[in-house]
């Protein structure tokens, strides 16, 4: 399936959970937050949340800033 991840077009297998997506990206256990189609996906639901084709996904973290 086709998704938009941090602004880039990407291909992933169907029926992927949010936690599987993060694992594929090597981000498991990192301190980050996930937004799908402008809705926050809480960390507690990463296992059960299934990514849908066409989802717009943002993965963010904290960096230096004023």
């Amino acid at each position, binding site marked *: 399936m086709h998704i938009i*991840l*941090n*602004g*880039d077009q990407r291909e992933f297998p169907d029926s992927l959970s949010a936690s599987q997506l993060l694992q594929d*990206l*090597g*981000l498991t256990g*990192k*301190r*980050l*937050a*996930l*937004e799908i189609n*402008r809705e*926050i996906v*809480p*960390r507690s639901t990463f296992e059960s949340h299934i990514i849908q084709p066409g989802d717009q996904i*943002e*993965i*963010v*973290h*904290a*960096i*230096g*800033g*004023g």
Partner: protein
Amino acid sequence: MSTVMHPSAAVSGDPLIIAGVEYHSRLLVGTGKYKDMEETRAATEASGAEIVTVAIRRTNIGQNADEPNLLDVISPQQYTLLPNTAGCYTAEDAIRTCRLARELLDGHDLVKLEVLGDEKTLFPDIMQTLQATEVLVKDGFKIMVYTNDDPIVAKRFEELGCVAVMPLAAPIGSGLGIRNPYNIMTIVENATVPILVDAGVGTASDAALAMELGCDGVLMNTAIAGARDPVLMASAMKKGIEAGREAYRAGRIPRKRFASASSPIDGTFF
């Protein structure tokens, strides 16, 4: 509201209280523009700050997987992190950023709201900032709001429920110092929430002046990170803030046009 003691505010007769939490330091610092994580860590430590701003940005996907994480050097256990909506030009983007930050930091709801109007000045877009404030207050956020030095607008943010109001001294990163001390003084006099100068200070005397005007604290980033020696400047700012605060509490003498001798006239033998 009960007052919670910040771990490092153990002994202080003059705490800064924001949203019911006591802080010992009145200097708040940003973590941008440093050359590396070690400099960020060292300057932040030298500043004595307890509240430290961070930005929320996209994670790099598939590159630099092992790059150092800011939160490894600025630990959420040691510092009160203040996620900031810098770079947002609409209320909607600022609201999204705050919600992502709250999720990222496990429900932490103290945020710095900043909605910019213009890339050249980085002045706040007050209309957008007001809109974002209304939504975020209803959503349970504790907002420290970046605004201009307009006393009417500052009061409005307080009435909307912001836990601190943070007028600029001068444009972000400009180092011009406090351009409108009378407005800052009026904002302080009108306020019942902490007023912190946010942005525009250049050196320690600017920070001291903000405190002498009665501000409750100062938030800065570029003045430290952009100095030739950021760690030394962080230390200077800490002292400037402390000196300015003590001078404000001590009450300065009135300005007079002519001299007033320090030694008594009585008892002179000449």
